């Protein structure tokens, strides 16, 4: 390869998705047909959809678990389930929803959307992207293998020691949970790394950091956050596994400390709450203004509030531990931060209100979900503010009030935005609009079912119903409330079923969407729906935050150039740009599809399978095979070298 090949000034071409150039790019980027092709695909859109579908399956499984154990606490002294069955079900429900649904679903949307909204052709590390998906999938299967063989974790998703330690839990159940979490932790960490690099270095030329779509701020923020949070929980589970398998004493008194677990767990656990809501909230901040026909009110404030929430989110973990006998000074500090963290959330809430108030809202299903979200966002927020106050929390903690709060946060702040986002971006993903009439039914069933099911939990909490009890006696004043809760949760489930039906029907009979059905402002809407494998036939150049609206808003003398740009067609190529200003920096050669991500994920899973059954030969064999796969994966090839533009 000659020096001129490395120092190439790319030519400029015209945007035309029917040109020979587009055909050439298509041939370069297309996933090969057949099973092998499917398994080796590194296309971010393909992987994003797999993430979304898999997460929704976990959501359904976790939901069914909840529907089953709700029957056990619908009325006093019910004996449908044994205590152990109940405990396993609520543990699996919590773990599935928080770890295998709530984060992966957002990862799915981000993997699909982020390269499109920042105007590039794939994630920075496409194979790593495929690898993180497979690992996520296998970690979930790993956990459910435990469930299937009757060794489901039974200590809640928070998994407190000493109950999780061997003397009280001698089976494999907690080992399944610990190891599947470590496996998932690897996936999450690597995925976050990929997002950080992608969002900081792959943005379209001209998309300086202050023009980063608000959608990307959520993903960028939490990806950085994950890099700091994940080590804590991975370490926590690893130490637990050591305690259980090799009788170390990290958590075992008198030399160890049960509270060490809680610190390590919540140092990750509270930031994690923001990790699984901030990208969802950013989806609202992105899509809601488009449906209100105006740019978001206070872009800078909302972006900074997103970052600030994450930063403060690292300083509130102790509010999960207010009752553990910590000194008053620590309680005061963490209480103050826990109350004041409401401020950045208030920034977002008032930005949305201002956007709706001054905008001209389109009353479609996506908008209904976002509007409904604002209501439940506020309810989940104020109940969080109540629990942030130490003395009040001494009463509230571990009651149904907190169950209500966590569901308002996780369903309210995660699932409602995800539903809205599904209606909003489904046309981009599949080229079809979701049915609006079915959508209304979908929304109202979910909104009413959710509030009927979960709002009364605040009251049962205030009446003193403890969490995680498999039954309750008569005469506690809790009978009616629990009946209402169960009914509501079933109505909610029907609502979600309507969504599935809508997706299936709309995929077949849906109205064609066209490239930009909502007349939206950002780059993903400049591509055909669904986008071709290479995303952009020529790479756009940006001059404003809202390239598709700028001629109408007339706020900037500069204009984005969407009609022509670099075609980068000398192979699978993408453009790297500088971190802050997004000046072109290098032409990247993107890797081909490969089976290695899948094979390496399988090898790693086999290693963890070996660990749980203590087949040490399997552990060593998987390690060796995995190293070989890594060598093949990473083998240096001249054609993947960067080019300077």
């Amino acid at each position, binding site marked *: 390869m000659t020096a001129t090949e490395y120092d190439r000034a790319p030519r400029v071409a015209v945007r035309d998705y029917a040109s020979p150039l587009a055909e050439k790019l298509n041939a370069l980027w297309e996933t090969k047909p057949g099973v092998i092709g499917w398994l080796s695909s590194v296309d971010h859109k393909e992987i994003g959809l797999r993430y979304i579908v898999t997460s929704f399956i976990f959501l359904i499984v976790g939901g069914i678990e909840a529907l089953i154990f709700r029957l056990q606490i619908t009325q006093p002294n019910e004996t449908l389930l044994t205590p152990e069955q109940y405990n396993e079900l609520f543990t699996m429900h919590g773990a599935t929803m928080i770890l295998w649904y709530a984060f992966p679903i957002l990862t799915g949307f981000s993997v699909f959307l982020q390269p499109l909204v920042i105007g590039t052709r794939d994630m920075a590390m496409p194979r790593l992207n495929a690898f993180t998906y497979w690992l996520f999938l296998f970690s979930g299967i790993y956990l459910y293998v435990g469930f299937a063989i009757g060794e489901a974790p039974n200590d809640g998703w928070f998994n407190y020691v*000493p109950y999780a330690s061997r003397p*009280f839990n001698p089976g494999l159940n907690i080992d399944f949970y610990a190891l599947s979490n470590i496996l998932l932790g690897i996936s999450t960490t690597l995925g976050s790394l990929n997002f950080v690099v992608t969002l900081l270095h792959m943005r379209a030329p001209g998309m300086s950091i202050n023009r980063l779509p608000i959608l990307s701020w959520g993903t960028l923020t939490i990806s950085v956050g994950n890099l700091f949070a994940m080590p804590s929980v991975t370490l926590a589970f690893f130490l637990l596994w050591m305690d259980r398998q090799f009788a170390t004493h990290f958590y075992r008194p008198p030399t160890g400390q*049960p509270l060490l677990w809680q610190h390590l767990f919540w140092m990750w656990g509270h930031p994690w709450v923001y990790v699984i809501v901030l990208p969802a909230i950013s989806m609202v901040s992105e899509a809601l203004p488009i449906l209100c026909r105006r740019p978001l009110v206070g872009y800078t404030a909302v972006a900074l509030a997103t970052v600030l929430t994450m930063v403060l989110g690292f300083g509130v973990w102790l509010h999960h531990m207010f*009752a553990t*006998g910590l000194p008053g000074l620590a309680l005061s500090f963490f209480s103050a931060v826990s109350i004041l963290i409401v401020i950045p959330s208030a920034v977002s809430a008032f930005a949305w209100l201002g956007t709706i108030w001054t905008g001209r809202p*389109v009353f479609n299903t996506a908008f209904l979900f976002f509007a409904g979200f604002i209501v439940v966002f506020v309810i989940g927020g*104020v109940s969080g503010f109540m629990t942030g106050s130490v*003395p009040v929390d001494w009463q509230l903690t571990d009651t149904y009030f907190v169950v209500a709060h966590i569901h308002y946060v996780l369903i309210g702040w995660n699932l409602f935005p995800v539903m809205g986002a599904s209606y909003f971006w489904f046309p981009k993903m599949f080229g079809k609009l979701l049915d609006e009439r079915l959508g209304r039914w979908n929304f109202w069933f979910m909104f009413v079912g959710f509030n009927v099911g979960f709002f009364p939990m605040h009251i049962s909490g205030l009446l003193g119903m403890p969490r995680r009890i498999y039954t309750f006696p008569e005469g506690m004043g809790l009978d009616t409330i629990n009946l209402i809760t169960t009914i509501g949760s079933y109505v909610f489930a029907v609502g979600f079923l309507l969504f599935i039906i809508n997706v299936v029907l709309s995929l077949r009979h849906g109205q064609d969407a066209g490239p930009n059905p909502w007349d939206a402002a950002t780059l993903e809407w400049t591509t055909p729906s669904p986008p071709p494998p290479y995303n952009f036939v020529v790479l756009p150049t940006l001059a404003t935050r809202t390239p598709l609206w700028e001629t109408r808003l007339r706020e900037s003398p500069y204009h984005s150039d969407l009609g022509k740009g670099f075609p980068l067609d000398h192979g699978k190529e993408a453009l790297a740009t500088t971190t802050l200003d997004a000046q072109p920096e290098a032409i990247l050669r993107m890797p081909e599809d490969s089976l290695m991500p899948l094979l390496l994920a399988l090898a790693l899973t086999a290693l963890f399978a070996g660990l749980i059954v203590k087949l040490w030969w399997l552990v060593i064999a998987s390690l060796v095979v995995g190293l070989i796969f890594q060598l093949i994966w990473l083998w240096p090839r001249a054609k993947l070298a960067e080019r300077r533009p």
Partner: protein
Amino acid sequence: MSNGEQILPSPRTAQGRGSPATRSILALALPCLLLSTKVASAETPLDYLITHGARADSIAHLAWFSTAVSVLVILIVTALLLVGMFRRRDLPPPALPGLAAIARPQDGISWIYVGVGITTVVLLITTFWTFATLARTGPQPGPAAVRLLITGHQWWWEVRYLADTPSDEFTTANEIHIPVGKVVEVKLRGDDVIHSFWVPKLAGKTDMIPGQENQTWLQADREGVYRGQCGEYCGQQHAHMAFEVVASSADDFEQWRQQQLQSAPPLSGAALQQGEMLFDSRCGICHRVRGTTAGGIVGPDLTHIMSRRAIGAATLPNNRGNLAAWIADPQHTKPGNLMPRLDLSGPQLTLIRQYVETLK
């Protein structure tokens, strides 16, 4: 003395706390919360919005304040949202196709300034109120009249009354008696896993953690029986790990204390003696009856079990039927608990039950 007669007016009779103002805010606020006050005036023994001790009272005031603020915020935001959504409905409906034009009205940002400004003020008030309440309810306000060491076990409560002279100390289980209006100091330990000590009407939770000793305090301002409950998930029978606090006058408390200090009296009658021997051999490994050779410390001390209102950690009322059923098969009502089924014959069961009934 039969404890049955000592049972004091139930907290139901002492309901009605919370100023009329706060109650009406709540009642107006939300139909659902109206439901809660209605339910609260029925029997809700774990409800902590209506409290009966100095410590829980000042927490309840803060809780009512933050509840009122929360409800208000929800109502205001929902109203703004609805008005914001519908105030321009007179314009042509911007449905597809024909979306409304894009514009950037300039008055949006003031929403953030005003909204966040007001929010910050409310949050600061709450923060300082929190500090004040924490200072008032955290540290014990003075020397304690009664000192307790309570140990959480799967799934029951061991209660030791501490004293300066060892002969004044005694151990009981699952039922705590305290004198009304006095500060009670409570040291807390976890024996196996983490439990949490919680008497909603008197004080919030404090965890009982193995390897660490926590401390809390209680004060009941009205006589009554207050239900307590384990507040931290602790395994299969977390649901049935409750206890009761009996707050009584100083005299009644002292009388109870003296009675608890007694050992089990010697028995007359062949059947009872046979029952005692049987108890000793089948139950005495885990349970203790002071004054006999049954000296187990794994399960609750049963020296005065018949003075207690309930059995199985406040799971069943203490009466003959429940007692017999429990001895016959403790796994029936509380499956998974650590007391094994003993497979006693009918006559053995009767002997043991009759013996236990002498432990007043």
